[in-house]
Structures are given as C-alpha cells and as structure tokens.
C-alpha cells in the first residue's frame, strides 16, 4: 500500500498482502479511495457551506468504494471483470460500460427474492449475488453476525456504543436494517450531488442532517466491515480482534469528528 490506511478502509478491505498480484492492486486502490475520501470527509467543517456541499460527494465515493470492496471479497470474478475491462485498450471512459458495477443489481438486489429462496424449482436468475441481497444475507451476513455475537459474549472487552448497538439486534434485524440503511444513505448522498434537486436543499442538507448522514454511513460500513471478517467465506480476513480494533478506532474518529462539528 502506498500510504497509511484509514481504519475504515482496513476494516472494509481487510488484510491485503504485499505481493503484486492483480487482486492486491484492485483492493489497494479501493482501500486508498476509501482512506482518501474518509480523511477528506472527516476534515470537513459542516458549519461552512462549501464544506457541507462537498460532504455528499465524498460520502458517496466512500459508500460505493466500500461496498465494491466488500462485494469483491466474496465475488472476485465480478470485481476483477470490471478491472480487466477498464484495463483493456478498447476501454473508453466517455462511453457507458456494460460491465460497470451497479448500485441496484450489485449492491442491492435488483428484484425481490422469492419466499422460498433455496427451492430447487427456482431458476438460476432467481439466485441473486448482490452484496445486500437476501441470498448473500443468508450465506454471509446473518451467520457472520451470529459468529460475531458469540465472539463478543465470550471475550471480555470494553463495549463501546457501536458494539452495544450491534448487540441490541438479532441477525435478521441486523441484515434488514443494514440493507435499507444502505439504500437510504446512497439515495441521500446521490441527491446531494445532483443539482437538479429543485426543492430547498439548504434546509435539507443542513449541518445537523449532513452530520447525521455521515455518521450513519460510517457506522453502517464499519458494522458491515466487522461482520465480514466473521463469516469465514470472504478473502482478506482480519482476525476478529484486529477487526474489532479497527471498528472501535473508526468509532473513536467519528466521535471526535462529531464533537468538532457539533
């Protein structure tokens, strides 16, 4: 890696080794993006209008980068394909790419999962690989969450507000809330960077609200990052102790930022 990574980036991208494999190049880039924009975001003074207008842009970069990295940690084919296409000599940044990652489709499921998700009669297209789709929820997020809960209850540690917040949910609530929260925040940040927004944006993206969105986003990503290291099926896993360390370090940074921007 080229610079010291932000704890949120370490939590999301995990343990990237020093070899120059293409997978490391991709994860290092994402980690650098998350680190860079996290630093920029958490240096903003929300009382300042110019800073406030930048927040949704930085935040959207972080949430997209983080979700792409998490997706790539279990579906490297998907992430790697994008990398390969973008590296191709025919790639033209002025044209829409057919393989580009899509928020709806890759991060949130494009369609509602069937009630009986694992019914053998279901078609192949019924099985969704989206990061926060119900199938990945069953395979990754819910079991990972339970493993984390077991780890927390068997290890004595200082319980911070974010850890306690996690413990107040069950695995279904954790997954459902993460899914909808990601959708809401992505939508809020997207509207914040689109200037076709014709209603009074100043009062909606005021300092209090932008601060709330930013904190919610970092907390959501930190939670997903932490749980990702407990599912056992992703690459670049950190030990649970390391993951909790980065999780709490991220929480501490947010706490300090909140105090500064209050």
């Amino acid at each position, binding site marked *: 890696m080229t610079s010291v990574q932000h704890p949120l980036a370490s939590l999301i991208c995990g343990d990237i080794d020093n070899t120059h494999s293409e997978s490391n190049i991709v994860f290092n880039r994402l980690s650098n993006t998350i680190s860079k924009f996290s630093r920029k975001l958490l240096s903003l003074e929300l009382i300042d209008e110019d800073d406030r207008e930048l927040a949704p842009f930085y935040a959207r970069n972080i949430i997209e980068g983080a979700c792409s990295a998490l997706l790539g940690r279990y579906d490297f084919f998907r992430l790697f394909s994008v990398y390969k296409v973008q590296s191709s000599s025919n790639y033209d940044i002025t044209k829409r790419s057919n393989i580009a990652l899509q928020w709806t489709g890759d991060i949130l499921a494009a369609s509602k999962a069937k009630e009986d998700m694992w019914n053998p009669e279901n078609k192949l297209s019924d099985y969704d690989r989206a990061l926060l789709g119900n199938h990945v929820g069953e395979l990754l997020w819910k079991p990972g969450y339970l493993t984390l*809960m077991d780890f927390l*209850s068997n290890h004595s540690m200082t319980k911070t*507000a974010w850890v306690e917040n996690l413990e107040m949910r*069950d695995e279904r609530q954790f997954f459902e809330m993460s899914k909808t929260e990601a959708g809401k925040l992505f939508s809020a940040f997207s509207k914040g960077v689109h200037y076709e927004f014709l209603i009074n944006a100043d*009062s909606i993206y005021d300092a209090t609200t932008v601060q709330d969105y930013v904190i*919610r986003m970092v907390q959501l990503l930190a939670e997903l990052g932490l749980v990702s290291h407990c599912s056992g099926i992703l690459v670049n896993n950190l030990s649970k102790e390391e993951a909790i360390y980065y999780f709490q370090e991220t929480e501490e940074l947010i706490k300090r930022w909140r105090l500064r921007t209050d």
Partner: protein
Amino acid sequence: MASENGLVNLILASEDFTAEEFVRYHRFMGYEENIIKKLMAHGPVLLKGGRGTGKSALLREADRRLNENSGSSNALGIYLSLRHLPLLRTRGKQYENELLRILIDKISKVSIEKFSFIFEATPEVYEVHKELARLSEYIGKRIVLFFDDAAHIGREAALEEFFDVFRTLSSSNVSCKAAIYPGVTRFGNRFDIYNDANVVEISRREDQEDFDEFFYSIMQTRFPNELQERTFSKELNVREVASFFGQAVVGNVRSYVKACSILFNTEKTIGFPTLSEAMLELSSDYYWPMIEEVRLKIGIYEALIEPSQELATTIYQICGAKSATSCIIHRNLVNKMDKALEILEYTGFIARREVSRGMKSGGRGTRFVLNLCNLLEVISGSRLTKDLFDQWSNRDGEDIQFSQTSSVFSNIKWPEIPEDKMLSILELPIEKLKKSSVFPYGITDNKLEILKEQGYITVGKLAEASDDELLNIDGIGDKTVERFKSVLGQAIWM
C-alpha cells in the same frame, strides 16, 4: 409544574415541567446528545423506550434546540403530545381525523404566532401534507414534527392509522419523529419499519462511557440541597452511590429520581444499610405497585398482569438464589412470553441487553438484566453488604440461563388476549385521583366533592370534560384545572 412543598423531585415525567423548569432540571450527556442530534436531523425516526427512559425529554430538547435560535435555524420544530383521550377512544378514519385535527390546531398556532402564516387544511392526510409543503416553502425551513406518546403497549388498535399518517406526512421537507414503547408491533400494511423510519432505541447501560456521570449529574440537578446536607459513610462516596443506583434501576431515569428521593428522605448517614432500605422500599412501594398501576392502563393486555407477576417472581427467585444480576432466556421462550416480558421491561423489572446470545444448552436467547432493588428483596438476608455492592457494581457472576426445555415457566397460565378493550382506569371512580403517595398532586377531598356534585363520577368523565366546562363550576379556577390535567395525565398515560 407545580412546586408546592418544594417537592420538585416528585415530578417524575418531563411533560410536567414548564419550559424554564425543563431546562433547569434536565441534563444530557454524550449518549443523549447523539439521540437528540438524530431527532433534530432530517428524516423519520421512531424513538423507542420503556416508561421513564426519557423519550419525552429527548423529544422536547430536540424541539427546544431547533427553535432556540429560530432566526438562524434551518428547521422548524413542532412538538405535539398525543395525550388526548379522543385518540384512545377512536379507531380507523375517525382516529385519523382526530389526530389530524390536533395536528392542524398545533401547526396553525405555531405558524401564525411565528410566521403570520395561515395554515389551512381539512383533516385529510394529503391536504395536511400539501399544506406542510407550502408552509415549508414559505418559511424556507424544513419542518420536524415531534409526536410524543404516540404508541403505547395495549393501545394498539389505532396504531395502523397513526403510522399511515406518519409515513404520508414524511417528505423531503417534513420529518416525523415519534416516541413509541417497546413491544409496539402493529405498524399496518403500508408501513415498513425498516424503510419508513430509523428506529432509535434508548438503552442506558452501565458500561456506557457517560453512564456514571449522567446519573451523578441528575442527582446534582434534582437534589442539590440534599446532597449538601447528607453525609456518606466512609466506605461510600456520592459518585459510587449515583452510579450504583443508576444500575439498580437498570438505567431508567424516572425510577432513578424516585430512588434518590427515597434515599434522601432520611436523616441518617448514607451507608450500606440506608441503600438497602431505599432499595427495598423501591421494590415494595414502587416496582410491585407499578405493575398493578399499569394493569389499568394497558387495555387488551390487562389479563397478562398476573402471568407477568408470576414470571417476574420466578425469574427473580431463581436469579436471586445465586445473586445473579442477569439471565438469558431462550428465543422460543421469549417469543412465547413476549408481551409479559415487555410488561416487565415497561415497568422496569428487567431491561433487554444482547438480543442474540448463544446458550450453553444450544440455541440462542436474549439477555436481560434485572433491577437490583427487586433482586435484593429475594436474596438471602435481603441486605446490601459491601461485598454484594462490589459484586453487583462490577456485574460479576454468570448469567442464569433458561433453556428451551426449561420447565420453570410451565405453570404460568397464558390467557387469551381480546381484540379490543378500553382502559380500565377510565371506568374507575374519581376517588382514584385523590391526593396520595401515587399522586402527590392529586385532587383534594374538597374538589372531589365539587366534581361529584357536578356529575363527574369517573376518571373517564373528568378526562372528557373541556377546560371551559370545568371553569364554569364554582370553586374551580385555572390552577385547579391545571392540577386536574396533571393528575389525569399521570393516571391515564404512562
């Protein structure tokens, strides 16, 4: 708030404070500040917490801050208490009309007073939605509607309509924030709990960073004179006591104020015996009677009071035998006994902590912590010693686990729950509101006689009376009407 006899700390609900007193008697630490910020920010929020956890205080504070520097603020806060009897007595479209009528009245008042804007809408939800958008554009601010006392345990028949209104009014320039109780599960077909609101749950846990400081600051704010006058034994200091009592009442602010008022109502030096006495008094004169008091207020779940009492007795006896301060109950048992557990949470007997803990016997369960006052009552000797104080302060010891196959609750009979039932408190004779330890600002004998002569013989009758009707009675003035409202508030609402 009434301040007669200097009994300021007996006023336990934040709704009873005037604006000035509210500021004077409330303190907020980092944990509360985070919640207040969420309430001030744009976006729908359901604030969930049991009785006395501070929901109203947080809503009022968020509203106060939004309107404090109204010139520079980007938002207009409108706080609305839904403590209106007609809302309890109506259902369906009628409820919606009643709710919107109250809301329109409140918004009209605020918009005229502050912005000379005439808010014109009929009690139709889309009309109100449109008019709110017009008001927001006119004043150049987003609007935050705070619905206090929106949803109660046992009063769920009209909740679907409430959440429909909540959802429809929430928009790009209007945020709805509502205080609800744990256990509210009927949100209606159109309301998606995950999509249509952020749920913020109040849970003050003893290992939180500001926990000790928060409870110490309440003691300082509410009992400044007592703190100066009382001495503490050399084994204890005031901060330890504040923190221990905060834990003893599982982080519940209202119970804590009550606990302190009992503790300071003694001339003795405060040591372990005084703490013991105060905790036992709280158990026998506050917690157990509270279940009885709640019986009258929870409508359809009234029949669950006896099973809840049996459940509490069983849990406390088993945990008390080992001085254990918490227990894990298997998920299937939690599902089976959910409403009874909610009643116990609601009355402060237990507080939910981890929702999904692995159990030794297999499966997963919810961990609950117990209030230490009721626990002290059942442990051998019922005496708080230094060792026990240290053990409980550190939350040492294992959890008691109630596995899926546990038979300890099998003797509890679970009754059928009716579809609908009016609150029993409304049918009780008006003497129920007499001045007493439950209602320190209750109605005097003389006023009771006057009311009875005028035909106000039940609590419900008095609650239905308008201010004008009461003021027309000889011997009843403005102050008395306020007092009636205060005692009715305590009697009917949570």
